């Protein structure tokens, strides 16, 4: 097993944990942080899988813009899921 393979497996596990955290978290602000963590890991994975164009898009839009739009929306509505 090469180092790259180990990194890919570890990143995939982190990705799934962050995604489950985002789904099951009742505090929506923390859930948004979870989705943004998913985006960070996903953009690294895209880069390793030789898709740098998609990695750039994921990093700029997934990490920064989507997160801030969700944070503003939560600020305007409710923070906790019932």
């Amino acid at each position: 097993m090469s180092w790259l393979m180990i990194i890919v497996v570890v990143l995939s596990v982190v990705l799934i944990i962050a995604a489950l955290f985002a789904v099951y978290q009742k505090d929506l602000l923390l859930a948004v942080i979870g989705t943004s963590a998913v985006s960070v890991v996903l953009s690294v994975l895209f880069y390793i899988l030789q898709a740098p164009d998609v990695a750039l898009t994921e990093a700029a839009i997934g990490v920064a813009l989507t997160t801030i739009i969700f944070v503003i929306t939560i600020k305007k509505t409710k923070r906790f899921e019932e």
Partner: protein
Amino acid sequence: MRKVIAILLLIIIGYYSIDTILKIPFGEGVKGVGKHYLESTIKETGAVNSVTAIVVSYRGFDTLGEVTVLFLAATGLGAILYDKKGKKRSLQNASLIVKTSSKIIYPLIALLGAYVFVHGHLTPGGGFQGGAIIATGVLLMFISYRSFETNHKALSIIESLAGMTFVTIGFAGLIYGTSFLQNILPFGIPGELFSAGIIPLIYVAVGFKVGAELTALLDNLLKTIK
């Protein structure tokens, strides 16, 4: 009853997804249309980055559609959040460290965004990515300085001009060539900045358009916070 239907649907969807994925020959090299793209993009479009060649040249009309969708989404949001009174952001100023460092980083982020969309036909990235990077830079300034303002009129003028440039280049291809978005400029030497015909022009237009749109969108949203 609903659970049974849901499980049945999941089984059907799962079966067909796995069936499709198993039929894709992973790791056997590229075949068919992918092979054609990889082998002949430099010859047919002059672009070194084949992703850009597909997005702007082979599927240029789809890109125009995407730009239109983004424009409509931004316009719709602006219409929903429209307010006659010129509102101000009520966010607090950030700390001195954040303010000083964002003042240094902001021009660098804008430069990176411009680099990404100007070199779209040479290196990974392009108009959408570059525009989004520029918008994140402006976002950094929005959240560090309360007084940082963007000129909405200038933003909408940039946006309209960029969109018109895209469509004009498309119609120039229709007039001087054979079809909409046909390449009418010389290819130049592949790998140089001024090469690949109309691809860099279109990507610069898309970069300006996406950057201006996302900046205006963020400004509109941030102004709604009480």
